[in-house]
């Protein structure tokens, strides 16, 4: 229980007051201004239950462990991204070392729409702060099983993409129905790759969903699944655009609803994602999350126009939520007896084709993902990716060797990299060897090779 053994809640507040996507973009300097006013005025940082940290910068290497940034990491990020990712890493270190009970990384820019391959900004995100924390935990702290609970109103499609084939990472995303909001994905049938079935759980909610349904889902689906999965570390992608005043989302969650969610979930680290009601929601929701993490009374945190019982669930919505919870629990129970669709299998490989839309810069990326089906490990992954007109007609090849790779998979992946360097088929070729923590790239135009 938070605070029970006198350990503190670590806070990193990094509002990036000098960083914006563009002057009038929702992701702008002003976003955390009123949150700052509220938490400073409340004296949160002086509470004996709280300790404030200054973020440090993530290393390029920590980003290359997760992402294939095209052409290089340095060209897809700004310093603000390194600070946002570095904040999560710092809190991970502090929780693992036992110096704090839990932490909240109140940072911008956000990250949960950033996928494994990064050609540009998607849904306000360039790199995935949570995924970087997960792979850092595994590489530096020997942690194996991690759960990410994404409570942003938008589907955490980037995080889903990164851990799609990973049976050791449980990804649960609770969001507004993809038929009504960006990025248009996150349906119940999206359940993860052949070796990681039901380790991706999507809970799409109809617009207007209230605290009541949220907590039904927590109590009857998320908490039982977490209890079965037994993660060593829990990360909450704490987006706040489910709030009833958010201009982008259409949900009806309140600050009290968020506080109780945090209290039940007991994440080791919460990471701020979206939330664009910068005056009416963020100051209250951030306060609610901090107090809940620190085990403090949050009952006084309420929006000026809120009263208990203001939002009531409709009977139809209640019924639909119960049905969906049953459906998802059914998948969860069958998680170890899943047979992949034979139409996706070519010999020893499992194929997946994807079309990824980059909303900020308006272009489409096409991907073919090939997973080696292996009985000894989760298999290495080779991704062909191309974006029309960006790097000429040629695509790129990204090869990822998982942490627990068997020698055979690793050897085959390395040979693929070496062979393709000579064919001239791809513009850039990347090898991400998580088992050896070595990440390299190769430019076929000038035969330059580099480590990230």
């Amino acid at each position, binding site marked *: 229980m938070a605070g029970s053994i006198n350990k503190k809640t670590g806070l990193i*507040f*990094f*509002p*990036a*007051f*000098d*960083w914006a996507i563009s*002057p*009038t973009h929702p992701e*702008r*300097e*002003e976003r955390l*201004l*009123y949150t*700052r*006013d*509220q938490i*400073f*005025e*409340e*004296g*949160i940082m*002086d*509470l004996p239950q709280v300790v*404030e*940290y*200054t*973020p*440090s*910068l993530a290393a390029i290497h920590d980003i290359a462990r997760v992402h294939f940034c095209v052409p290089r990491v340095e060209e897809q990020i*700004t*310093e*603000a991204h390194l*600070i946002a990712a570095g904040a999560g890493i710092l809190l991970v270190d502090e929780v693992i070392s036992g110096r704090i009970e839990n932490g909240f990384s109140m940072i911008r820019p956000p990250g949960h729409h950033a996928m494994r391959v990064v050609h540009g900004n998607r849904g306000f995100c360039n790199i995935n702060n949570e995924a970087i924390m997960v792979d850092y935990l595994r590489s530096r702290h020997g942690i194996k099983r991690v759960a990410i609970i994404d409570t942003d109103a938008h589907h955490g499609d980037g995080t889903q993409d990164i851990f799609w084939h990973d049976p050791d990472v449980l990804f649960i995303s609770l969001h507004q129905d993809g038929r009504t909001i960006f990025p248009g994905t996150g349906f119940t049938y999206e359940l993860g790759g052949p070796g990681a079935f039901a380790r991706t759980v999507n809970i799409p909610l109809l617009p207007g969903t209230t605290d009541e349904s949220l907590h039904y889902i927590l109590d009857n689906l998320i908490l039982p699944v977490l209890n079965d999965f037994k993660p060593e570390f829990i990360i909450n992608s704490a987006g706040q655009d489910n709030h009833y005043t958010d*201009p982008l989302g259409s949900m009806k969650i309140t600050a009290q609803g968020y506080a109780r969610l945090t209290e039940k979930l007991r994440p080791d680290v919460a990471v701020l994602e979206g939330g664009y009601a910068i*005056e009416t929601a963020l*100051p209250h929701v951030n*306060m609610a999350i901090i*107090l809940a993490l620190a085990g*403090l*009374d949050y*009952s*006084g*945190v*309420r929006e*000026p126009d809120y009263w208990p019982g203001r939002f009531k669930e409709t009977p139809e919505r209640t019924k639909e939520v119960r049905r969906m919870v049953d459906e998802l629990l059914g998948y969860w129970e069958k998680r170890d007896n899943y047979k992949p669709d034979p139409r996706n299998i070519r010999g020893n490989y499992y194929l997946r084709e994807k079309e990824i839309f980059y909303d900020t810069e308006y272009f489409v990326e096409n991907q073919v993902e090939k997973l080696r089906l292996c009985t000894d490990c989760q298999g290495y992954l080779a991704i062909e990716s191309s974006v029309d007109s960006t790097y000429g007609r040629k695509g790129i090849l990204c090869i990822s060797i998982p942490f627990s790779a068997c020698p055979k998979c690793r050897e085959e992946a390395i040979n693929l990299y070496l062979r393709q360097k000579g064919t001239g088929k791809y513009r850039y070729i990347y090898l991400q060897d998580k088992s050896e923590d070595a990440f390299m790239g190769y430019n076929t135009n000038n035969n330059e090779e580099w480590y990230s």
Partner: protein
Amino acid sequence: MYVGVDVGGTFTDAVLLEKNHVLATAKVPTKGGEELLISILEALDSVLRDVDPARLKRVVFSTTIITNFIASHKYDDVALLLIPGPGLDCNYFNFNAKTHILSGAIDYRGREIITLKEEEIEAVLSELALEGFNKIGVVGKFSPRNTAHEKKVAAIVKGRYPDWHVELGSRIGVQLNFPRRVHTTYLTCATYEPYHKFVDSVRQALVKREICADIYILKADGGTMPLDNSEELPVETIFSGPAASTLGVQALIPPRETAVVVDVGGTTTDLALILSGQPLLSAKGARVENRLTQVRALAVKSVPVGGDSVLKCSGNGIDILPERLGMAYCMGGPVPTPTDALRVLELTRLGDEERAREAMNLLGNVLGMGTEEVAEKVINMVVGKITSEVQNMFLEWEREPAYRVWEILHKHKVRPEMVVGVGGGAAGFISLVAGELGCRSIIPRYASVANAIGAAVAMPTLQINLRADTEQGYYIIQEEGFQGSIKNRRSFNKQNALDLAREWLIKRAQKYGVEVVPAEIEIIRQEAFNMIRGWVTTGKLFDVTIQTPRGIIERIGLGEDTLWLDQ
């Protein structure tokens, strides 16, 4: 000619300066209560002797006696009327005072979200009157953004009880931190009378000696304010002791130096940092007793070891207790102390060598260690405690939160170049501390009256915090509690905000009799945010903090005679 007087708990020190020379110094015991005046007079007389009082340009006082008042709780009870509104439960902050919570709330933009209830206020006041309270602190959450609620409550109090002393949080704690604003307001109420008595003693002393120079008081941030104005904000002067000695060191070492000031006293060692010639301010505000305040103060740390700390065996080791039972053993005291260890190792010439050896043997006999061995162990412990705290201070400074990308990118490591010793017990330890930190060590010639020198060279500082909200069309000058309207809401920009703040600073300076050169005004903070609502700019928010320059009037001549390099 300048005079600096530091009225400490044990001694009152004074110095007389002319240009960059120390003409005279004095150290007399501080007498408490009504006799305070006598101590001040003795110190003044001692440095002024044949000096014509008309030649004095200014006299600056610093004092720790207000801090002592607070520590001994010798003041009338204060009642707090708080308007916290929704949010964190106030009970998490122990205000340690009679507290009433009033209905009402203001939000972060200064908008009223819950109104006050007059009948509730009336009822609370009747209760307080029955209980005999007459000192009231009125503090609202977000009151620096809108002072209306606090002012309304104060007006009701004044209407019913014109004699009561009422302080408003918005004038006293202008930063965004409600609990600290409450504590600061509480202390302002509590110290008002004791401070008034102190100021009275000072005034009488000056009248008696026919001194009509400008009189200032040192603040905890190392600036001064005119004595007459200081009664409005007595808390600014608490904790000015460490500021005095740090400024003194600043005056005694070469400019732009990065130094650690180590003031070794009887049972505590106070540490302060001078970074590139400027004393480091604490990021948030001073801690006074157990109260976290908004009082701007130098970053100082107190380590519970000193020359007279009691040494005691415990198990296989030695404990340094945070208490004093008298002088060091070598000077006739009852128990072994670090000073005895210094004497044995010939790091000081104070006291009797034989008694010092005896003191170490008292410990050594129990632990089965030789005389020198014990002495070395003790010294290593003391030096270890001091150096690790110095390192912590630098780390804390580096880790101070930053909220902008460029601030994080420009954080850098700084390490001290010199350790400067002041205070009675400094001599023996300083070179060892410096050795551990890899710096030079210095004990300035006037180390023992560095605090009075610091007071003498301190300069007046004034600050103005301006908040402007063009969407709502108003601005606030927080120190003055003034709320005005912005006429040209559309075109009002960063420069206008700065100019407005400058205008108010100059006005405030005139009121305080402080000269300001507009070109020298320092900008401490300048924030500007565009407010975008639905892709359209609806207004701008500006926060500006400016102040008159920090610094010292003179440096004391840096010849062989003032700087003693401690080998």
